[in-house]
């Protein structure tokens, strides 16, 4: 292909907070019992209503920035972005213009670094839907748009990358990583079907060997899955290549993606570039953070998936692929890690255990106790039973070698059982049925 992809992503995600961004209404547009039930003068843009910022949303945006290796602006503010649309009750959206909370970060992907240009916080708009209703009572249905403000002013982060993305698969990987990180931070559900995460891609092509950015940009909007994102970029590569090869330049425009046809389609041309007349919102005092505050927030970050996978791989001698599989989601990872901790203590083959878990060779639920999981693992992969006399002899040896542990156990600290099992397994080999060992051990201790 004589052309190379130049692509940047703009991703919006609704933040998970109890209340909305600028008012104390419930932030739960999908759980609302009926339209326009989570509203107040502020999110309906009534006369005299004033916004007051949600501290939690600000903190979460900055934590996201820290997780994405961003710099944080110690001075920041909210601005008004002025435009008209029925889903925008005030005639302006409160957003951030020239001083976003975070800038200059990056996400690593298998095809290279994707730099984050900026992350800012804004408010979501109302939700529009369409229906034919007889509005004027003439018995004929009219095309109408319905507006529900339950979503109005829900906190929304926008994460904008540099045009670093070089392939459709990289776009997808970046999106998936971003979603994974937001979920790890527990700041957003990123449910794309409900519009909780929205993808936009700026796509253009440059001739192989050139370095400067193309002088046009096609914006693809309304993409609601990573699969479609990949498909839309692929489609655009084909479409734009054809135009370029015929000596043309693709029109600078906004395009939608139709999942049924697999094609993008023109929505509107960008010739009359919008003039949003940004200015600092006089209703919202500016924000100033100290380096100490930012550092404290950094300390509160959970271990992120990449670091965690690396650590699990090292600690439990796992291959990196399986470690990554274990750490896809935070709660799952917590569970797997507790199982692995015990398995290591009991001197089991952790990689084998993980394979069994990932390939669903044993059944388990995230609520199970680690010992129960290990028991099913042992049963399933049995594990040679040992001659009872030999087992008793080894156990006696282990117990007499570890009088402290025995004492602790008898004092009620049953957690040392794992240690004693581990000592025994070391003597007998990893193939030994750990259940048998444990049962016999308990008998002897009691």
């Amino acid at each position, binding site marked *: 292909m004589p052309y190379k992809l130049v692509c940047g992503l703009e991703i919006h995600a609704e933040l998970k907070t109890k209340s909305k961004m600028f008012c104390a209404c419930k932030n739960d547009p999908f759980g609302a019992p009926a339209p326009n039930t989570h509203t107040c003068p502020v999110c309906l*843009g009534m*006369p005299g209503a004033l916004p*007051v910022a949600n501290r939690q949303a600000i903190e979460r945006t900055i934590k996201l920035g820290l997780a994405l290796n961003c710099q944080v602006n110690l001075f920041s503010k909210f601005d008004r972005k002025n435009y008209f649309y029925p889903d925008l009750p005030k005639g302006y959206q409160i957003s951030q213009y020239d001083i976003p909370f975070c800038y200059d970060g990056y996400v690593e992907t298998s095809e290279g670094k994707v730099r984050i240009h900026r992350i800012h916080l804004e408010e979501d708009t109302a939700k529009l839907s369409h229906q034919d209703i007889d509005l004027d009572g003439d018995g004929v249905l009219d095309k109408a748009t319905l507006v529900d403000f339950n979503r109005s002013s829900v906190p929304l982060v926008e994460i904008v990358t540099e045009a670093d993305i070089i392939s459709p698969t990289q776009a997808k990987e970046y999106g998936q990583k971003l979603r994974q990180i937001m979920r790890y931070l527990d700041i957003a559900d990123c449910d794309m079907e409900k519009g909780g995460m929205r993808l936009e891609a700026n796509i253009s092509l440059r001739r192989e060997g050139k370095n400067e950015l193309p002088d046009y940009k096609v914006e693809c909007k309304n993409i609601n899955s990573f699969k479609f994102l990949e498909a839309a970029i692929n489609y655009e590569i084909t479409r734009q290549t054809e135009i370029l090869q015929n000596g043309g330049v693709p029109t600078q425009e906004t395009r939608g993606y139709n999942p049924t046809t697999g094609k993008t389609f023109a929505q509107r041309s960008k010739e009359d570039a919008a003039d949003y007349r940004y200015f600092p919102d006089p209703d919202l005092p500016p924000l100033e953070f100290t380096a100490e505050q930012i550092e404290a927030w950094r300390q509160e970050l959970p271990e992120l998936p990449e670091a965690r996978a690396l650590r699990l791989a090292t600690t439990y001698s796992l291959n990196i692929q399986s470690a990554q599989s274990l750490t896809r989601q935070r709660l799952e990872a917590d569970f797997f890690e507790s199982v692995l901790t015990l398995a290591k203590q009991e001197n089991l083959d952790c990689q084998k255990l993980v394979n069994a878990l990932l390939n669903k060779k044993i059944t388990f639920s995230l609520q199970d106790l680690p010992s129960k999981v290990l028991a099913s693992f042992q049963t399933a992969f049995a594990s040679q039973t040992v001659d009872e006399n030999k087992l008793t002899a080894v156990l006696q040896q282990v117990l007499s070698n570890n009088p402290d542990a025995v004492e602790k156990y008898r004092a009620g600290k049953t957690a040392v059982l794992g240690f004693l099992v581990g000592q025994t397994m070391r003597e007998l080999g990893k193939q030994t049925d750990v259940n048998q060992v444990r049962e016999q051990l308990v008998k002897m201790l009691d």
Partner: protein
Amino acid sequence: MKLNELTLKESLDKLAKKEIKIEEIYQDLDSAYQAKNSKLNIYLSHNDVALEQAKKASHKPLRGLPIAVKDNFCTRDLLTTASTKILEEFQPQYESTVTKRLLESGGILYGKTNMDAWAHGSSTETSDFGPTLNPCNPAHLPGGSSGGSAAAVAADLAAAAIGSETAGSIRQPAAWCGVVGLKPTYGRVSRFGVAAMASSTDSPGPLAKTVEDAAILLNSFAGPDERDGTCSRNKAPDFSQAIGQSIKGLKIGVIYQDIKELASTNQILVEQLQILRELGAAVETVQAMDPHFAIGVYTVVQRAEVSSNLARYDGIRYGLDRSHFGAEAKKRIMLGTYTLTKGRADQYYNLAQKVRTLYLQDYQRLFQKYDVLVSATSPSYAKELGASLDAAMFGELEDMLLEASSVSGLPGVNVPFYRDEKTNLYLGASFIAPMWQEEKVIKVADAFEKNTKWNSWRNK
């Protein structure tokens, strides 16, 4: 004497001593309302159950006294039109913080008063519901934008009134109607529920018969509000403590602007301020930054904020659509839009905000030397009806002496300092102090009021 002619303080005292009954006040007030309101066009709506509510409020600080409220304060029980066609039928389902607190303090919302549409003006002539006439001389304008509230006080159609000021909208109509108008520090009073004009300068405040009345009324609604992020987090002081204090040793600077149109007003002002010297204050003339720049700052900042603040009126959730804006609103919205467009923001909006800083710095310099500054409120007496029409900058020029202090957020009080016997029209003086120091202007204005003959209630 009719009981509606008592000051707020007199009414409170007489009610406390049981010399009069609240019913008697309302009886006199209602007859005055019947006699004058349709002629002067002061109230746009009237509370028919005011007396019933008043009877239930007798144990509260304001004892059920009737208060006139400008029609840009959202009220659950009365329509809120901001004197516009667009909001003609708007019935808020929420209460502004100011009126909520007023009601909690036992003040009664007697009715909503006429104003310049959207508060755009200094005449009350741009109201979509016709002009209010000046009770002192009905051939003249009451000023604005809180013209209805000033007129309600002047015509004894309320014990006191509430208005809002962006740059002059409390003090200028107060001056033209010969009453007291107190513009608190920006951020002293919550803006929640007040239809916004220019968000960075809008300040709700009292209009009253005396400085003391204004202080009492301000006490009922000033202070922090979690629903307004620009409202001070500090508890408001008891403003009535500043009443009756000595001004001995106070340093007062008279801002003497050498402008032709001001010459005769300034001359009277300087003569009248002589009394402050006699009361022990040091009074001297000072030069302040040219007020003409303030006209530009205010015009740009206000119109930019207006263009955005009025964007919400699209007719979908309430009110009529955008084709129903009056000529003045259209002009302001569009000029504001223009000054914010790409490539022009630096030339206009950002430059105006820089010059605003120069005014702040100038006041800092002046307040290092003076406790209080004073100037005329308006260059002249109330203008005749029709004067504002087709004058693109009528209000800005009328309010040129107040704009600098308004964009700087300073508190100020207007008190009458002269009455022309022939026309029965007043001149007003505006005392200003550093931010958060309302007590200083209240103290000086109170002393001035009590020691001169210009307050018509104190000198009946």
